[in-house]
């Protein structure tokens, strides 16, 4: 085999990446993905500017967090994938340990025990780390096995996923629990999990729904689901959020009321306008056009992410990168569906736009990993 034959198998992108002829290849960064992310972040900051209603401190804090998130992305991109492969089981076990610690020593905020605190030093949510470590662990597990996974391997993967997801769900933090499960499960789907099993599982869950309703869901969670179908039943209580957010989005119309003109958020009718419900602010102020623009950006990020994942040099890299992309989608879908009133209210932020730092850092670190598995071609 001559050298030229070998080179033919490389795409021009790979060839350029391998030669390290551009600065961004040397930095292990994909300029298209980073560009798209930057546009989303910039768009989010503009909307946040309106949502914070003149509170400069909040805006500055978010700018700072996003800077950290971009830094996390760049750092994550530098680390070669085989390092992630090596630390995946350790990372996962550490996360599990932290979750157990949270169960016993966690700090309760707003009725939910999610935080682990080292007094005077730091305070963090182990559940947030699990969004990365669960798919990593599943990908690590499947890396050494033949795909599509057999029933035995699938059950093992489900165990890896379900234990932390369940613990997080009981904190209770249903939103993060769903995301962690989604992140892990997306690895299985990408690994070729039999569609037939998936259908059977869905049918089984539907059959068990009454039992889940009775024994798994908490009272407030049941109320949220009921409210989804009839928000007017309790317009000032459980239905308030949905009524006000659909009103905000609906009143925006095709082109919106104009930036900084949203009365629903400005007059405090819209709860959590900066955080989980920020898409209602976009819908109200920028209308259908504004939300569609954002959704299009998200779709482009997903497309680019999956394409990068498909280019990865190892099963582990592909599965990991692909699952991060799909997790990103679950984020945005659950959030937008919740705010527009087609899913019950669960605490999931709009990725890269909602006020709040932890999820942005996790997400950007995930994108860093995606770029790492693509650009460290040598491995």
């Amino acid at each position, binding site marked *: 085999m001559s050298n030229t034959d070998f080179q033919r198998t490389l795409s021009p992108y790979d060839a350029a990446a391998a030669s390290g002829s551009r600065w961004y290849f040397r930095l292990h960064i994909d300029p298209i993905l980073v560009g798209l992310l930057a546009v989303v972040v910039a768009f989010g900051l503009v909307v946040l500017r309106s949502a914070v209603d003149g509170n400069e401190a909040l805006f500055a804090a978010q700018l700072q967090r996003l800077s950290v998130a971009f830094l996390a992305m760049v750092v994550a991109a530098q680390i070669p994938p085989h390092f992630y492969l090596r630390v995946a089981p350790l990372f996962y076990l550490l996360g599990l340990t932290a979750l157990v610690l949270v169960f016993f020593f966690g700090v309760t905020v707003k009725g939910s025990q999610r935080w682990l605190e080292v007094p005077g030093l730091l305070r963090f949510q182990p559940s947030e780390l699990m969004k990365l470590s669960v798919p990593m662990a599943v990908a690590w597990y499947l890396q050494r096995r*033949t*795909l*599509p996974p057999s029933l035995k391997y699938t059950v093992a993967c489900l165990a890896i996923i379900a234990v932390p997801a369940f613990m997080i769900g009981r904190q209770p933090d249903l939103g993060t629990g769903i995301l962690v499960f989604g992140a892990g499960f*997306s690895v299985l*789907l*990408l*690994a*070729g999990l039999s569609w037939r099993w998936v259908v059977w599982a869905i049918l089984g869950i539907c059959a068990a729904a009454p039992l889940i309703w009775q024994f798994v869901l908490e009272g407030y969670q049941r109320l949220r689901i009921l409210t989804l179908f009839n928000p007017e039943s309790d317009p000032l209580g459980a239905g308030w959020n949905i009524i*006000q957010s*659909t*009103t*905000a*989005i*609906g*009143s*925006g*119309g*095709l082109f919106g009321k104009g930036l900084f003109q949203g*009365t*629903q958020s400005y*007059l*405090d*009718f819209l709860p959590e306008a900066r955080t989980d419900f920020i898409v209602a602010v976009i*819908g*109200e102020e920028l*209308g*259908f056009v504004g*939300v*569609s623009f954002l*959704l299009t950006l*998200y*779709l482009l990020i*997903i*497309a680019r992410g*999956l394409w990068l*994942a*498909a280019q990865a040099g190892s*099963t582990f890299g*592909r*599965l990991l990168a*692909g699952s991060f992309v*799909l997790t990103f*989608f679950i984020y945005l*879908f659950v959030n*937008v*569906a919740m705010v*527009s*009133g*087609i899913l019950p209210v669960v605490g999931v932020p709009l990725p890269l736009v909602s006020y709040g730092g932890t999820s942005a850092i996790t997400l950007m670190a995930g994108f860093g990993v995606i770029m790492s598995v693509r650009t460290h071609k040598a491995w």
Partner: protein
Amino acid sequence: MAVELAIKDQNREVALFVGRATTLFVLVVLLLGVLILRLLDLQFWDHDTYKSRSDDNRTRVQTLAPARGMIFDRNGHLLADNQNASSLALVGERITDLPQTVSLLTQLLDLTPEQQAEIQGRMSLNRRADKPLIVVDALSQRQVARLAVNRHLLPGVEVVNQLVRFYPYGEVAAHAVGSVRRMTLDDLSTVDPIQYSATSFIGKRGVEAFYEEQLHGAVGYQKVERDALGRVRQTLDVQSPNPGQDLRLHLDIELQQASVKALSGKRGAIVALDPRSGGILALVSEPAYDPNMFVSGMTAKAFSQLSSSVYVPLFNRAVNGQYAPGSTFKPVVGLAGIATNTTSWDQTIDDRGSFQLPGQERIYRDWSWTKDDSGGQGLVDLNRAIYRSSNVYFYDLATRMQIDDLVRFAGAFGLGQNLVLDIPSASPGLLPNPEWKQGVKSLPWYPGDSVNMSIGQGDLLATPMQMALVASVIANRGDLVAPRMLASISNGAADTPQVLEAPVKKIGAETLTAEDWENMVRAMGDVVHRGNQGFRGNGTAWAYIGQDIGYRMAGKSGTAQVVEIRQGEEYEEEQLSEFDRKHAWFIAFAPAENPTIALAVLVENGGGGSSVAAPVARAVLDAHMQLQQARGASGRDLEVVAR
């Protein structure tokens, strides 16, 4: 071999991954499509629904109460003003724990236990949980400040600023002007609910009630933008309310004050009229109440004290107190005798102090009768019968008259009916006649009924207002001008006030001559001015009021029995309980030759008309004459438009 398998798997797994990624990407696109459809649903197909829902969220139409018209006296003194007041209001739906809110308010505002109970009571009856309900009125600056500081602890507690009624003269003009009261749900059913949607007070008594429509004005609107907590962020659109019309009354507040002073705390009433216009110059009922209490709010206890007092301060004696007029009725009987040709000014009778109907044993006595029969006025004609107030003369006259003639004549003076144009609640008194007696008592009219009626006793009842009108008719020499409170009505300062014409009715036009009226005026003048002629030659009131008087006044005293004095007994004041003593009356007008004022004074259970009521009347007339003189120079008095 393991390496070989791995390489083989690698190719297959890439293909598998690409296949899965593609499938899942299609799924992503489909799910995003669902979101897009949902957004179209909200923002395009149902946009109008959500648009109006957002606007409803944002804006509220608030009603604005019009400023109530002000009330002035004839000389422009302000009788009813509007003042800014802060009240405490609670919004039911925003209060989660009422007892806790009340206890916090108690700490902040130093509420009395009564006020606390009042708040709980009003809140429990409140039917509009979304609207502020005013529970404590007239907050002090200090209280408002304390509430403002602690606002965050008190959701649903608001301070409402509004214009409220203020009566600068308080008790003095209470019964004349009336008062407003906080509206109740029952009140809302009697008025246009839209016009009154922002109004808290409604005229409940007196002028305030009768001219409610003119005083109220028209409601205004404003559209405001509110936030989720109901706080007003900005006003978007305003349609100002139209203030109510200002009223100018005939009332002379300075004369009113003098009248209250003249009564000097005695229970009773004074009504003074301008005979030319019918204008009510003074309307006093004592004891009175402070109308401001109905505005600033009073506790249930204070109200029950006010309403259950044996002296009934809320009762308007001037127009609703019905009393036997006693001898003040005699001028009417005398004129009826002349008008029916039953007697003449020359005809005399011999008054021996007592009177008996033919064939009856009952003795009707003169007021001067004594047990030893030494009383009586001697030879009396009508003139003397008036100034000596001879009962026997009128006993005799009445028995010789057809009772229907007397009743018809007395009715023309307004007795037995309410002729006041703007006090519909004034009582009609009672002018009995045979049909009435048959109907109510199932008894025929006995000659004795006529005898009793001739001296204003028996079933006959009249209000001070009606007796003032009797005085006014005589002062006018037969012209009856219906009394009224209102002089003119105005629409703000720019407009010329609309001055009201007074209807005039002539009494005895065909039967009485001008001379007859002058004779009666002269006789009533003698009641006051005829003096130094010995006991049987002096007017009954001369000794009390007839000296040192700078103008000619005409009057007639009356002393009305409240309980029957048995045959053969004398009236012993000390032996009677307070409420059984005689009522003292005096009707008068001045100056006799060209009267500008006619009045009636009643002192409840006061005793003798001449000794008790006459000095009060004199004091009021003196005040009127002085005020007239003082104003004559400055020309401030209301022009007279009656004739």
